[in-house]
């Protein structure tokens, strides 16, 4: 934009700004009403949000919930600290076998009587 354009724009800007003082009283009153309505709407929305938060989480609940949180953390910490040894024991071959049996689609009766079948086989081979 050249200097001449700038001067032209400044002149128009000045003219427009001056015209703001000529706005009639009726318009000004209605603008004030519109502003008041808007501010009230914002306040109502803010109050509604505060109410919702208060209902969902009452003030008196704050200390109680903090105490509950600490108690939970302490409980979990103690439980982990003093957990039974079996939880930390690595899986033994027996356990792995059990898992294989339980996850198998074979008839469980076969496994329940497995000792009997082993004995029977042993008897057959020795006799």
């Amino acid at each position, binding site marked *: *934009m050249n200097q001449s354009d700038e001067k032209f724009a400044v*002149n128009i800007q000045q003219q427009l700004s001056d*015209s703001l003082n000529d706005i009639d009283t009726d*318009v000004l009153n209605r603008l004030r009403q519109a502003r008041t309505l*808007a501010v009230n709407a914002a306040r109502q929305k803010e109050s509604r949000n505060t109410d919702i938060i208060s209902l969902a989480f009452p003030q008196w609940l704050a200390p109680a919930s903090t105490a509950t949180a600490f108690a939970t953390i302490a409980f979990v910490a103690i439980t982990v600290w003093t957990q039974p040894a079996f939880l930390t024991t690595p899986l033994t071959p027996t356990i792995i076998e059990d898992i294989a049996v339980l996850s198998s689609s074979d008839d469980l009766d076969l496994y329940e009587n497995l000792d009997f079948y082993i004995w029977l086989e042993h008897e057959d081979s020795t006799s």
Partner: protein
Amino acid sequence: MTGQNREIEAAQSLEDFLQSIERRAFKTAYISTSSKEDALDIVQDSMMNLAQKYADKPTNEWPMLFQRILQSKIRDWYRRQKVRNQWRTFFKGQNDEDDLVESAPDLNNNKPDDKFIQTQAMHTLENALQNLPLRQRQAFLLRTWEGMDVAETAEAMQCSQGSVKTHYSRAIHTLREILEDYR
């Protein structure tokens, strides 16, 4: 600070902000619509929109948010007018009686906007601005009157910076041709 005090302070900030921009917003809308009632509606809707949706945003973001809302409302108004005019044109040939009533001169010359326009110079300037295409007028008013730079104007108009430059340049040249006195 208690919640209630914070609420009062926030409401006061919003009130101050709206008060600082309401006249300029009205004038912008008026230049775009040539109608006091429509301009007031647009400003009221824009204020309400800002208050309901963006009042919790940082106060330094309000001017740009408000401009975006205002410019969108003005564009919506244009679209509605366009549709209305199409229907009017469509029915014009079918109902001559309505046409006569609409085109009858106002003998009392009680056009409400006449009171509003107080000086001839302002009247000429407003006419020139009103005759600009919408996007050119928006670019011109945002850059010249609102003092926005190209990037801010592009954001408010929701278009590219290149478009803003083009619209603004065309607006300046058209206005200079019409308003010789302002040179």
